């Protein structure tokens, strides 16, 4: 690889800092007592405790998956602390009461959230470590009957809804990490859009992992009733650490008849240093159930961070004429590893799915696209279109594609396209011969490559995504 390319991809992480807020941390290790402690700390109802315990029992019988194309030292689940929360303070009435240290953190991230919230009309449900510390715009949303709060709050204010839907898309024993999450999740977002309501603004949550050594087990549940629609944004970044951190979130989406859920993620967690030390393990289960007729679930993700990413935002297309979409950009650099993709499970008639995956691989990193398209016998006239493109920067990285196609109904149409390209020295030379420096050239090529995905993002998120890719792949040239 040329010196120019080398220095371009070796850009240090810009969001590496630790905010000093007193944390309340559970002793390390996992057992029934810890689960009872979490549940008690959060003052949970009995049914939720048994949900957790049932998940824990399942988890004990399971083994960590090894089929994915990533490599990492065995995780010692007893060395993780499963609960960490900022010390309880009196309830916050407004953003002014939020710990200024926390606000500074967000500023450092380039996300002045109050400004953001005000200017962009975005309601920001701030998750700091595992507990929500501030929720804005709740009032406005409440006026149209939308519930947008932390899931622990929803457990108390709307227990019937949480109990009705929690674990219905991702069952407690779905997979190793989902079982773990179900046993120990501490917080996350809850969002309920009632019948016929179009959510008037994008809902947004900024996640942030802060306490060294504490696992993060977010739990998100979004329900759109008949004819409802919502666009939800998840963005996150993390401070620099030397020990690997496990993040095993679960996100469940449920769309009833004619409902529409769009879930967008820009992920920029600490990826480890240029030698591959440290960084977040991001093992996430995200799944949407297009339960009703004509419903739509759309995932858009821009994955730039984490030492290891392992996630397959999926759609179960159960309702007739339902639509599933997956738009993804995954960037890996240095020693990052990513095994990501989607599953489109067609069950209903005339169901349609679209998969657009763009992998950008630089440094010594490794990236795999893994996608399953399953057409069930009941899925008359189902259609899928998949497009998987890889872009290699330099010659020490690897990109792999693993498409799995299972068609059990002859009326189905399944199309798969794949391509691999490279940012070559000659391309960069062409740009520079026209006066355009390597940084700008790379950014232009990458943005062109990701265009189909970025188009799916809400405007200000697309801008942020573009910037993130620049953080990732650009550096001072020389």
């Amino acid at each position: 690889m040329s010196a120019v390319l080398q220095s371009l991809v070796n850009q240090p992480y810009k969001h590496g800092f630790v905010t000093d807020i007193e944390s309340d941390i559970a002793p390390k290790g996992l057992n029934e007592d810890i689960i009872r402690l979490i549940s008690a700390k959060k003052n949970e109802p009995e049914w939720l405790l048994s949900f957790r315990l049932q998940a824990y029992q399942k988890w004990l019988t399971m083994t960590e998956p090894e089929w994915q194309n990533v490599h990492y030292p065995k995780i010692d689940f007893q060395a993780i602390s499963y609960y960490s929360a900022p010390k309880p303070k009196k309830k916050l009435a407004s953003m002014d009461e939020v710990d200024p240290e926390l606000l500074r953190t967000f500023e450092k991230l380039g996300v002045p959230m109050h400004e953001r919230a005000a200017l962009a009309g975005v309601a920001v449900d701030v998750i700091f470590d595992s507990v929500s510390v501030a929720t804005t715009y709740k009032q406005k949303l409440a006026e149209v009957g939308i519930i947008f709060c932390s899931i622990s709050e929803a457990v108390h204010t709307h227990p019937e809804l949480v109990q009705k839907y929690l674990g219905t898309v991702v069952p407690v024993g779905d997979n190793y990490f989902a079982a773990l999450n179900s046993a120990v999740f501490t917080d996350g977002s809850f969002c309920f859009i009632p019948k016929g309501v179009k959510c008037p603004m994008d809902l947004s949550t900024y996640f942030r992992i802060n306490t060294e050594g504490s696992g993060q087990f977010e739990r998100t549940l979004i329900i759109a009733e008949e004819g409802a629609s919502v666009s939800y944004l998840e963005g996150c970044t993390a401070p620099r650490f030397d020990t690997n951190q496990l993040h095993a979130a679960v996100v469940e989406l449920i769309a009833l008849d004619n409902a529409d859920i769009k879930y967008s993620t820009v992920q920029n967690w600490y990826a480890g240093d240029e030698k591959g030390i440290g960084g977040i393990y991001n093992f996430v289960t995200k799944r949407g159930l297009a339960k009703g007729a004509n419903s739509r679930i759309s995932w858009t993700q821009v994955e730039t961070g984490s030492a290891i990413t392992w996630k397959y935002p999926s759609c179960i297309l159960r309702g007739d004429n339902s639509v599933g979409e997956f738009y993804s950009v995954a960037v890996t650099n240095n020693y990052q590893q990513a095994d990501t993709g989607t599953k489109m499970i067609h069950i209903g008639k005339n169901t349609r799915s679209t998969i657009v995956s763009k992998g950008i691989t630089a440094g010594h990193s490794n990236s795999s696209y893994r996608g399953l398209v399953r057409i069930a016998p009941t899925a008359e006239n189902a259609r899928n279109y998949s497009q998987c493109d890889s872009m290699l920067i330099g010659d020490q990285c690897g990109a792999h594609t693993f498409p799995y196609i299972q068609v059990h109904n002859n009326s189905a149409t399944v199309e798969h396209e794949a391509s691999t390209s490279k940012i070559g020295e000659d391309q960069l030379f062409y740009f520079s011969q026209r006066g355009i420096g390597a940084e700008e050239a790379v950014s232009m090529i990458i943005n062109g490559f990701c265009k189909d995905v970025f188009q799916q993002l809400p405007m200000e998120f697309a801008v942020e995504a573009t910037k993130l890719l620049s953080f990732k792949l650009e550096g001072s040239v020389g």
Partner: protein
Amino acid sequence: MIIENSPTILSVQGLRASINGTEILKGIDLTVRSGEIHAIMGLNGSGKSTFAKVLAGHSAYEVTGGIIQFEGKNLLELPPEERARAGLFLAFQYPIEIPGVANTQFLRLAYNTVQAQRGKEELDPLEFDDFVREKMKLLEMKPDFLDRSVNEGFSGGEKKRNEILQMALLEPKLSILDETDSGLDIDALKIVASGVNRLTNKDNATILVTHYQRLLDYIVPDFVHIMQAGRIVMTGGKELALELETRGYDWISANKQQAMAGVRA
């Protein structure tokens, strides 16, 4: 045109360059003054494109000796983008495709970069659109080339025209056209040649790399240089190209010594 005492734009002395340890350029001397058009001819593999790329600063080549001065500046000290901004332009023999990047976006960024360098006004996308369409008319290019990805799926001739479009936009001090005529049909050749002729003036200079006398009927050179095995072995006026066409390169080899005198001396 040869102008008495016009300032030197490019001065190359004893230039040596290699790639992967193989020496390709073995001591090139060339002086180009403002207002002049130089043609470089030579057998395949003699080093013409290498010379062009070394002038433009391609990082794959290692310069092992000699000096290059561009308007008095030491060109070898500048990275390729700064050479471009200083007014050195290379129309590539094989223009590269850049999928996903719209031609108009690319052209505008290049244009604005050079404008900024010259302390001149940059254009927003709308203004640029008008501006570039005018330039395209001169080259009889269809506007749909603006929305397509840079060179992607362009025919050989279309790529060459896109190169000259960039020359027209950037108004370089020194243009090096590496076989811009290859792959052009006879109509396109005339269009491109008249485009180039319109762009040349007393304040800039052009180096044409070509295999064919035909191009030189349209763009008449002041000097013709013959390159052989990494050296300029013969220099003459425009009649040298005709001579070459009738007598072939063997004749050059036999008459190197005599021709080395050149017209300038």
